[in-house]
């Protein structure tokens, strides 16, 4: 079964450094997302991406964050200058679109990148 893959599985960085989290969504999917989860608790929406542009972003997704789909297969999340509070598990997800619209399509998640900012 096709999977969403994320690399690296664990990233440690110093405060103020830039990080890029990488994702390869399922190949025929059209909608892409980043979520994060702090301390194994609530799953927080960061951003959704469709047709090569951001569809929606949350308040968390400030100017320090950006997303890109550089080559039609990868989907990246960049944090320009990391803060301690950015430490979390970051999940990439993708979904396909059905004729009735995306609401019928479940999300397929990767196994996440654990980001630790020191």
């Amino acid at each position: 079964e096709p999977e969403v893959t994320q690399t690296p599985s664990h990233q440690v960085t110093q405060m103020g450094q830039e990080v890029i989290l990488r994702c390869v969504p399922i190949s025929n999917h059209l909608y892409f997302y980043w979520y994060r989860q702090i301390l194994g608790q609530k799953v927080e929406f960061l951003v959704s991406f469709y047709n090569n542009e951001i569809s929606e972003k949350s308040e968390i997704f400030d100017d320090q964050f950006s997303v890109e789909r550089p080559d039609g297969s990868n989907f990246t999340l960049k944090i320009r200058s990391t803060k301690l509070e950015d430490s979390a598990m970051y999940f990439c997800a993708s979904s396909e679109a059905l004729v009735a619209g995306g609401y019928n399509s479940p999300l397929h998640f990767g196994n996440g990148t654990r980001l630790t900012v020191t």
Partner: protein
Amino acid sequence: AQSVAQPEDQVNVAEGNPLTVKCTYSVSGNPYLFWYVQYPNRGLQFLLKYITGDNLVKGSYGFEAEFNKSQTSFHLKKPSALVSDSALYFCAVPSTSGTYKYIFGTGTRLKVLA
């Protein structure tokens, strides 16, 4: 705005007993409701969804969910719990913003005791 609530942070159940993980929803229009499971150090996995039709929805790993419109609930159930069902469970609803964002509940940790 669409939302879901999971009133229990943790549910403990003995192996072999039936389990219920609760979810209530607040949506405008027809509700589309989802359950996901998260095992340790893994991403969320889709379990089942309610779109329309039968109020009892069957999903993966023997789970089912009962949609109740009058109680605005979508509880996850399994007739006989396994120790391997121990995980974090999330209900979710898509946003109506037109951007296909999914809103997740706060999660319920299920612990099945041998």
